[in-house]
């Protein structure tokens, strides 16, 4: 799929995620950008590299009871519980408006079983206007006692293979950071056919209200995101980009163009902006603008020169 103008723009910000060409490396992260429409008042959506929509499951999910979010030091915990309209209503209600905004749409999917991932992918396979599928493997595998797919190489690979078989768009596998060695999982999904990996999803955390002596989140535990986790994300992106040959999409605490550059130097081909959208809804577009200025100022031939450009030894 081609979303870039046929004539290369003055500043070359283009990057490729497998067969998908993006006009720039700035994407928005799943669950933090709604179905994009929410950001129309603030952002020229067509200027973004891509948008990733809220995770979609086979059937609609109501999500967790409140409270679902709590601020932490330089971060936030969320336990949304993957509230979403389900794949059918997503296609019928959301895809039209998404197609209208003229930006590549990446659909983030999740499931309780490998079979569920397969079915969602099949259902999405022939829907027009989907640029790629991003597979959230941080979900618990109900058949394996709730162990997250993303923490066991074999399970991660099985989900990847199932999705790959079921659709023809590029498949991005979104890795969980809650593992001993993320490169092992990355290599497993690469071997299983993933076209790219994106990382990191949230770190598992918890907050307690010492007044009530109860967990703050109804779900007890939640996912930590925001600037607090950036150092962990950057390290994992660095490690994974050295371990796999497929493109790596960096996620975690990215707020400004400086963060984008750091993730690209660490090895990311593209990045996703998550929590920062809540604080500054224009964060993604400002990152595109900043990156464009940077490439000009630094007289780079293209933004791709940054990828993995970290200087390690003297």
């Amino acid at each position, binding site marked *: 799929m081609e979303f870039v103008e046929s004539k290369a723009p003055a500043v070359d910000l283009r990057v490729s995620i497998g067969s998908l060409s993006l006009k720039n490396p700035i994407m928005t992260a799943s*669950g*933090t*950008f*709604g179905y994009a429409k*929410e*950001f129309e*008042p*603030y952002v020229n959506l067509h200027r973004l590299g891509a948008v990733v929509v*809220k995770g979609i499951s086979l059937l609609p999910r*109501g*999500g967790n*009871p*409140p*409270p*679902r*979010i*709590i*601020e932490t*030091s*330089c*971060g*936030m915990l*969320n336990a*949304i519980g993957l*509230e979403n309209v389900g794949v059918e209503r997503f296609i019928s209600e959301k895809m039209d408006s998404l197609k209208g905004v003229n930006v590549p749409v990446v659909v983030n999917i999740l499931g309780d079983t490998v079979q569920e991932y397969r079915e969602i992918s099949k259902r999405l396979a022939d829907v027009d206007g989907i640029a790629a599928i991003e597979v959230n493997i941080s979900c618990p595998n109900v058949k394996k006692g709730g162990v997250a797919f993303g923490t066991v190489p074999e399970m991660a690979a099985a989900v990847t293979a199932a999705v790959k078989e079921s659709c023809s768009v590029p498949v991005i596998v979104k890795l969980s950071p809650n593992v001993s060695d993320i490169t092992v999982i990355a290599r497993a999904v690469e071997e299983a056919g993933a076209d790219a990996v994106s990382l990191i999803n949230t770190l598992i955390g918890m907050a307690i209200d010492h007044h009530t002596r109860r967990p703050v989140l109804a779900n007890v535990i939640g996912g930590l995101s*925001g*600037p607090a986790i950036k150092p962990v994300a950057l390290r994992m992106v660095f490690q994974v980009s050295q371990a796999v040959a497929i493109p790596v999409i960096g996620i975690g605490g990215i*707020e400004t163009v400086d963060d984008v550059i750091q993730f690209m130097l660490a090895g990311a081909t593209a990045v996703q902006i998550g*929590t920062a*959208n*809540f*604080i*500054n*809804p*224009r964060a993604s577009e400002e990152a595109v603008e900043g990156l464009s200025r940077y490439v000009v100022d630094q007289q780079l031939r293209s933004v791709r020169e940054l990828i993995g450009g970290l200087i390690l030894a003297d």
Partner: protein
Amino acid sequence: MSQIQEKTQVIRLEQLTSDIVRLTLDAPEISSIASPGQFVMIRTGNTSDPLLRRPFSISQTSSDGSFQILFKVVGRGTSLLSHCRKGEYLSVLGPLGRGYRIDPHRLACLVGGGMGIAPLLFLGKTIMRKYPDQGPVVVLGAKNREELAPLIDDFADLGLKVHVATDDGSLGHHGLLTDVLKALDLGPQCTTYVCGPKPMMTAVHLFCRSKHYGCQVSVETSMACGMGACLGCIVPLEKGGYGHSCSDGPVFDAEELVWSL
């Protein structure tokens, strides 16, 4: 829904009590499109701690392009905000959410407790302007005179009759604001527009139900984005499932919500 991210300048910061502050911001775009019951999300500092914006009801807009919020210092965000200076710029998102739906055919009764009084001024003014004959009834309550007194003047200035209650009896009725409400003769057709602590809203809702009055309540939940993106701000709905208080609310018909009675 049109919403704006505006760099607004601080026009005035008034310390109404030791911990209640009124902030006036120059925000022509937001002010011109806001309606009563809507809120704004304000960045209270320039660093990543606190990370998230804080929600505040718009308590008044002015034809000079400014609007006001009225807030209580309860934590770090509001503390930072109470230290901003005249001339400083604050990033504001707004106006956000669905506000009060004014029913011109029924007597309006504005019921506010504590900082819940904030959005009602905007509502009172709007009703007075659009339906000058309406003359809404206002019932306000707070802990004590110190907290309540500075908040009622604006209503009185509108020419409204304000009924008040304080927990300690230092101003108005000694006791609950719902006692005052129940003692009023509001006739057969009335809608209450309510904002305040949950127990107070629950009591008002029950009273309205018993009287077959309309009841619109503004709910507070924790919010990360204020614009329907994070799905963090839910309230359980009577019909099942959840509403999102930032986009479906913050004002809901009380009957729509689940009340733990």
